[in-house]
C-alpha cells in the first residue's frame, strides 16, 4: 500500500506522520496521533461526531483523507482549552447541561467554535441551522442551543 509522509498543524503543534493514502483523517488523528476526543459514529457523514476544524472550516474527518490535511491546520476538541482553562463553550456546556453521554460533544464543541467565529451572536434559529450537521441522541438539543448562546454572550 502506498505510504506518504504528511505534516500539518494539529492544535497549533506541527506534526509529521506517515499514512497510507487511503487512510481517513479521523483514523489518523485518533489512532496515530492519539487524539481520541474526535469520535466516529456513522461512516456516512451524517452524525458529525468526527467534526474537526480544517483550515478554518468545519469538516467531517471520517469523510476526508488524511493526505488532504497535508500542510493544513487542524483543530480538534483537545485544542479548545488554553493553559489549562476550559474554553467558554466547554464551560457553557457544563453549566447549561449541554451534554449527557458526551459522545457527540467534541463534534458539537468544535462545530460551535467555528459557528461563533462566523457569527458571534447567532439567533436560536441560526444556531439550530448552523449545528444541524451534528446529531445528538441524549439531550434533545435544547440545552446545547442554550449553551452556545451562553458562550456567545461570554466570548
Amino acid at each position: 500500500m502506498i505510504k506518504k509522509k504528511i505534516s500539518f498543524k494539529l492544535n497549533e503543534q506541527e506534526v509529521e506522520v506517515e499514512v497510507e493514502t487511503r487512510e481517513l483523517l479521523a483514523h489518523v488523528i485518533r489512532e496515530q496521533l492519539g487524539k481520541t476526543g474526535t469520535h466516529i459514529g456513522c461512516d456516512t457523514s451524517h452524525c458529525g461526531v468526527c467534526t474537526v476544524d480544517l483550515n478554518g472550516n468545519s469538516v467531517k474527518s471520517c469523510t476526508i483523507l488524511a493526505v488532504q490535511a497535508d500542510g493544513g491546520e487542524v483543530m480538534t476538541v483537545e485544542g479548545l482549552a488554553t493553559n489549562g482553562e476550559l474554553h467558554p463553550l466547554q464551560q457553557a456546556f457544563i453549566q447549561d447541561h449541554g451534554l449527557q453521554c458526551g459522545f457527540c460533544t467534541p463534534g458539537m464543541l468544535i462545530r460551535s467554535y467555528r459557528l461563533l467565529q462566523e457569527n458571534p451572536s447567532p439567533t436560536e434559529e441560526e444556531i439550530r441551522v448552523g449545528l444541524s450537521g451534528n446529531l445528538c441522541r441524549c439531550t434533545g438539543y435544547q440545552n446545547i442551543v442554550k449553551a452556545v448562546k451562553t458562550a456567545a454572550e461570554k466570548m
Partner: protein
Amino acid sequence: MPTLAGDVQAVLADEKVHFQYQEVAAVIADNRYIAADALDLVEVEYEPLPVIVDPHRSMDADAPILREDVVKKDKVGQGPRKHANHIFTWAVGDKEGTDRALASADVVVKEDMLYPRVHPSPLETCGCVASFDKIKGNLTVYITSQAPHIVRTVVSILSGVPESKIRIISPDIGGGFGNKVGVYPSYVTAIVASIVLGRPIKWIEDRMEHLSTTAWARDYHMTGELAADKDGKIKALKVKVLADHGAFNSHAQPTKWPAGLFSVCTGSYQVPVAHVNVDGVYTNKAPGGVAYRCSFRVAEAVYLIERMMDILSQKLGIDKAEIRSRNFIQAEQFPYKTSLGWELDSGDYPTALKKVLDAVDYAGLRKEQAEKRAQGELMGIGLVTFTEIVGAEPSKACDVLGVGMFESAEIRVHPTGSVMARMGTISTGQAHETTYAQIIATELGLPSEEITIEEGDTDTAPYGLGTYGSRSTPVGGAATAVAARKVRAKAKKIAAHLLEVSEDDLDWEIDRFKVKGVPGQEKTMKEIAWAAYNNVPEGMEMGLEAVDYYDPPNFTYPYGVYLSVVDIDKFTGEVKVRRFYALDDCGTRINPMIIEGQIHGGLTEGFAVAMGQEMPFDEEGNLLGNTFMDYFIPSFVETPQWETDFTVTPSPHHPLGAKGVAESPHVGSIPCFTSAVVDAFAHLGVTHMDLPHTAQKVWKKIHELGLDKRD
C-alpha cells in the same frame, strides 16, 4: 452461545445463515485497513432457502422450519411451543371473565396496531477490547455495556474462566438506550480470539453493522379490544400480541417475563377485568426485542392502552380528556392493585391532567381546531395520561440468569471526610456521578465535590444488575440512600461516644449531630469521620463504610400527562409539531436539571420513533435502510421545542420517594404524537394510523380521503 432468554444463538453461522448480515467469519488483523482487505478475501457461497419475513406467516402449516437446531425442544426459554417456529405463549388475566364482559358491554372498540421494529442506535456503536493474559489466566474486557456484572457472569459461564479472573470494564459509554444490555456474538469472537492468540483484540462496529445485527426494539403486532358502558366507563380490556423475535430468542427481559412487563397495559385506568395473550415467533431477521429507552415492553403497553382510550373516546363522542378522567384510578385508591396483578404505588392523575389542560388552554385549542376544520385545514391535538412501571426490581419477581434484580452501593468515608462510593449500575449519560453524590451529600452532610462516584469496573464495584429499565434511581439510588444511612447510623454511635451522651440525646442537623438542648455540644460528620479511625466506642470496629444490596418491595410507577398540537400540510403530508407540553411526576425530584435533560432527550427519541424510525424489510428479508441516510435521527432543525412541567407524588416505598424518569418521555410521547396526528383526521372517521407518521404515509391518508384537491 446461550441467550439471556434461554435460547441458543450462533456466534458465527454454521451451515445455515438465519438473517441478512449474520456473522459468518471473523478476520483478525493489525489494523482496520488490513482487516478490511482480508475480509475481501473471504468468499461465502450462499444457497438461497425459503424465508419468513412476516411473523403472521411463521406458524403457517407449510411454513419452512427456521431453526432445525431447536425443532425437537418443547421450550426455548418459555414453553410449551405449538409450532417449530413458535417460541412461547404468555397469557395473564381472566380470559373467561374478559370475554363475558366484552359480550355484554354497551360498546366494544377493536383495533389492530403495529408497533414497528425500531433501533435504539446510540451514537457510539458497540465495541470491546478483550485482553487475555495467558500466564496469569486473567481476562480483561473493556466493553460498551449497560450491565458489566452480568457480562462477567455470562463470560465466565461461556469461557470456563472463573469470575474472579475476569474483569469487565465499562468505561464512559456513548449512550445505550437498551441496545447495550445484551452479549453479542462479536464480543464472544473477540474474547475467544484473545484467548487463542494471547493478545488484546479490539472489535468496533460500524454503523451499518450496528443497525443490522445488534438489538432492536418493539416489532409488536397488537390487537386491542376495549369494552365500556355508554358513559365511557371501562368494563374490560383484551389484548392479543404477535411478537416477532427474529431468528434467535435473545431479547433482554427478566427471565420469568417473556413479554416483559407488558401486562401493565391497563394503564392509569380502572379496568375491572383484563386478559393478555402474547405469542413469540421466529422470523428470518436479526434477533432482538430489547427495551429502547423503556422498561421491558412498557412502551408497547402504554401505546396500546393510550390508543384504545382515544378510539373509545371517538366511538362514544366523549372528549379524550373527559373519557380519561372518568376512568382514572383516584388518588385515594393507591396503592392500587390492577386486574393484571400490578400494585401501582402512588399517583394523583386528575391533578396532573387539570394542570396540563389549564396550561395549554385546552378549550381554546379545541375551539381553534373547530375553526381550522371549517376552513379545511388539518390541526390535531394529542393527549396521553400514561403510567409507567420502572426499576426492574423485586428479586421475587425479576431475575436475569437466576440473579435477582437487586442493586448495590458501597460507601467508604475516609478519615478526612471525603468519600469513595461505588455502585453496580453504569451511567450512559444520566449523570449518576451527580445524582448519587447528591444523595450521599444530603444523607451524610459531606460536600458533594469531595465525593467520588465510580461505576462500571467489576473488580472494584459491588455486583449489580446495571442500568436499563430506569433502574438507577429507583434501585441504585435506593441502595445508595440505605448505605448512606447505615454509615450515618454508625456515625451517630461514634458521636454519642465522643460527646459522652446516649444516642437518644442526639439530633441530626444537616452535617452534624447535636446534643439536645445543649448548644455547642456537637460533632460534625468530618470530625466523626476522623474519630472513626482512632477513637470508636469499645467493641466497635474501626472505619466508616457500608454496603447495601437493595432489593425493593415493589416497582415504582412514574406517570405523566402529555399534550401535543400538530399542524399538517395537506399537500405534502408534513406534520409540524407546534407545541409539546410534558408534565411528569417522577416522585421526589433529586436533581431538577438532570431530570429536565432526561425529559428533553426522551421526548426527542419519542419524536424520532413517532415520526420516522422503522426498519423495513423486503420480502426476502433484506433490511431496507441500515445507515443514517435512511434511519431517522432527528437533527436540531426537526426537533420541536419542549415545554416541561411536573407534579410531585413520592413513591411510598422508595427510601427517597423517587421513581425514575428517563424513560417516561419516550414511552409517553410516542402515543401522544399518534394521538395528535390521528386527531387531525378524527372528524373524518379515522381512528388509528400506524407508526411512523412520515410525510409520505400521512400524505397517503390525505390523498385517500381526497383532502389534497386544489380548487
